[in-house]
């Protein structure tokens, strides 16, 4: 007698069931990991944006340079215009003088002598006048040439100055390159310290930017903190300010080359901006 048991069927069913469960788990896991990648909760970080002081200095210098060049050019123009006006005025005066003279002479001749002589006189006067005019013109020409020469000279000088400035700048840049890494390291330290001490207020929003100017001693002590650019949120500004004040002394800056310090860290701009905020 065969007793009904149904073991083969049930084994197949069970294995199938577990296989299905595992498969479902596998697919859901994959979907989940994808989802997790997308919706990963952003780590709320309070970041200070690195502000390379050397770059800023170079920028400042360049700005100053261009300003100076512009001013020079403007002055040059003004001088040229003055000279031109001067020349025109002198010419006018001379012509007026000549005319006056001619009129006087003509009157004298009319009064004293006959018409022919007067005519000759007149011709002579005309000739003289022409000569004088010629002379004046020559003088003007000369003056203009001189002017031109001066202008060229100025241009040459300016070029030389520019070249020199460029040379200086490139030399400074080279020095900076050797310094750059150290400066970067120091500013990274400063940023880290400030960041550690910065507790961001809840009113902070993305897109807020507060720029602080810090004045420091060579010992690393913070002398003065000043909000240069407000974020528009008082609490945010205050938090940034108090973060710097809480550090109080950047001991790591001690023992830095004093010239480097003066160049880069005497006054330092720090930019605070909240990043990775959800709202």
């Amino acid at each position, binding site marked *: 007698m065969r007793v009904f048991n*149904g073991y083969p069927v049930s084994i197949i069913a*069970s294995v199938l069931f*577990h296989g299905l469960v595992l498969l479902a788990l596998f697919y859901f*896991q994959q979907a989940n990991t994808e989802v997790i990648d997308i919706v990963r909760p952003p780590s709320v970080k309070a970041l200070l944006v690195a502000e390379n002081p050397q770059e800023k200095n170079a920028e400042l210098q360049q700005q100053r340079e261009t300003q100076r060049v512009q001013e020079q050019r403007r002055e040059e123009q003004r001088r040229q215009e003055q000279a031109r006006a001067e020349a025109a005025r002198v010419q006018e005066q001379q012509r007026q003088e000549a005319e006056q003279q001619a009129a006087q002479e003509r009157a004298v001749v009319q009064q004293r002598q006959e018409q022919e002589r007067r005519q000759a006189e007149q011709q002579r006067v005309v000739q003289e006048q022409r000569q004088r005019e010629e002379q004046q013109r020559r003088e003007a020409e000369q003056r203009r040439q001189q002017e031109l020469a001066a202008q060229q000279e100025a241009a040459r000088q300016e070029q030389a100055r520019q070249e020199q400035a460029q040379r200086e700048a490139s030399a400074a840049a080279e020095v900076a390159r050797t310094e750059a890494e150290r400066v970067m390291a120091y500013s990274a330290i400063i940023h880290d310290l400030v960041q550690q001490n910065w507790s961001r207020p809840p009113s902070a929003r993305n897109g807020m930017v507060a720029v602080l100017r810090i004045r420091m001693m060579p010992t690393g002590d913070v002398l003065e903190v000043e909000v240069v650019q407000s974020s528009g949120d008082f609490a945010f500004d205050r938090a940034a300010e108090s973060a710097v004040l809480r550090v109080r002394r950047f001991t790591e800056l001690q023992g830095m080359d004093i010239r480097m310090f003066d160049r880069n860290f005497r006054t330092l701009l720090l930019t605070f901006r909240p990043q990775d905020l959800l709202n």
Partner: protein
Amino acid sequence: MGESLNVWGLIAEATTAVQLVMLILMAASVTSWVMIVQRWMVLNAAEKGMFSFEKRFWSGMDLSQLFREGSSKQKENQATGGMENIFRAGFKEFMRLRQQGGIDSEVVMGGAQRAMRVAYSREEEKLEKNLTFLATVGSVTPYIGLFGTVIGIMNSFISLASQAQASLQVVAPGIAEALIATAMGLFAAIPAVVAYNRYSSRVDSITGNYSTFTEEFSSILHRQLYSSPSK
């Protein structure tokens, strides 16, 4: 795979003990599901056979004909239901004792009842077979899973102690891996417990029907014994 922290990576990177526990739990789950399906089929078949036999039995059919039908069924190598087996055991014993002659009707009745009791307990045993396994899986696998979890968490804390900088990233995979063991234990236990409760109540109702039938059948035999003119 380890970086994306999915279940497969965790299982692959788990410690050997935890992997062993997971293997045991997996095996227990598969086996318990084999039992669940098999019991379900067996109980369904038993219920069906019981109802169809009851119908035939109460249709006023001649009992000896019913017995012969069962015999031919068995000759054809077909399974007979539990209730039919009880009937056949009792009827066979009854007829045998009666045909011997000169036996007291009380003794005939007692023999038939004894044979039916034996058949009943055999059928009950058939129905309840493997149910204890389900009960064991249901009660033990959570503990096995818990054991794996404890071992996994222990390991992850040990590795945490050796780290200079304790961070969540160091502990998290270990704990997640350990928790998988608990999850698997529950996954195996829950269906087993549900099935055990369901099936034991079904077995109860079926065996209840069997014993009722036994009583009824013995009363029929009793009537037949005493109503027929004694020789």
